[in-house]
């Protein structure tokens, strides 16, 4: 492999990191539109359990996903550190509720390892990989796989 190819394959990407429980996660900074303090989230009757509700973001309705529920974690009351990260997936703009937003880090492709996936393909496909950072592991989330096509279709009904 030529040096230029190697450099291309090892390009740096920036990731926004956030916390959920004891773990730290990263999402591609290019897909993050903004980070909001938690204001009123209006519940949607009949919505699936992973949908917390909707918010009004400058006239646009944004569905907020309960990320703890999505990741199989215990629910937790929001507090001063809680944030809604507004992200752009392949087809939608959604908000994900996280315990706190930490920082933006730059990672090289070579730093990222595939997470051992021993679970159901469908449920864990959004785990893009893991990397070591400041003596802890950072779990990288593929936002384009965060919701399935069926789930995205469901969001259109709100």
């Amino acid at each position: 492999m030529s040096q230029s190819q190697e450099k291309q394959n090892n390009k740096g990407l920036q990731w926004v990191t956030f916390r959920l429980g004891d773990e730290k996660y990263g999402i591609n900074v290019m897909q993050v539109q903004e980070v909001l303090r938690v204001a009123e989230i209006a519940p949607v009757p009949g919505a699936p359990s992973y949908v917390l509700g909707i918010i009004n973001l400058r006239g646009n309705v944004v569905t907020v996903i309960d990320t703890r529920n999505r990741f199989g974690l215990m629910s937790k009351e929001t507090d001063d550190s809680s944030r809604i990260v507004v992200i752009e997936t392949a087809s939608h703009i959604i908000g994900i509720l996280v315990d706190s937003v930490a920082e933006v880090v730059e990672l090289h492709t070579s730093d990222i390892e595939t997470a051992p996936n021993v679970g159901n393909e469908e449920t864990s496909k959004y785990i893009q990989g893991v990397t070591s950072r400041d003596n802890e592991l950072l779990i990288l989330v593929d936002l384009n796989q965060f919701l399935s096509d069926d789930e995205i279709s469901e969001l259109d009904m709100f």
Partner: protein
Amino acid sequence: MAVSLNNAPHILHQELALDTYLKTLLEELPVAVPSPPPEATPATPPRTLQPVTKPLVKNPVKQPQTLKAKAVRQEFPPCALPLAVMPEWAQHEFQAIFFKVGPLILATPLTELSRTLKFGRVITKIPKQPSWFMGLLEDQGKKIGILDTSQLILGKSKSLNRDLIEQPFKSMLVTQDGNWALACDEVLSIAKVTPEQVRWRTDRQSRPWLIGTVIEELTAVIDVSRLTPRRKGG
């Protein structure tokens, strides 16, 4: 060596007893596991703990517990022939590490493992994985997947009775490739085991990781390569 007619019923009886014992221990039932009979617990001397984090295969064997095989013969009746395809390590004397997981004492060859680690360091949980996958631990540049051995072996229903916060695992055995570690309650000892001391299973369609039983101690011999999942990448 031929099996005398007088010995044959004795061996059959012994194998039936072993089958019943293992079935009782490993069968997934919603009830608590009965304690192993007294002979399942090594009596004396107390097993020597091995130093942690040193490569296991380089450790000198302390108090080698060379097991006696006086009651067992290599030849089995036709109904209990050992597997045609055995792991390489099972075909001659091997050093096994004995460890405890809940009520079970298990053994596996040292060559399948690289080192032991103590619990207490941060384990990163990966979302939406099976409950037997406890998370990842970074050690020596590898991201080791920690497996709840109790759940893998006893099944989820029995292990759900265990509260890992109140009764946490204390040690883990890291596989030779460094991809996985088996959580356990205690590393007991390292001892030499000869093939004659083991009653090898003849059929591994169910529980393929259970390869046999050290007869004198009623210790299940685990084939780690069949117990750990195949790692997709990483």
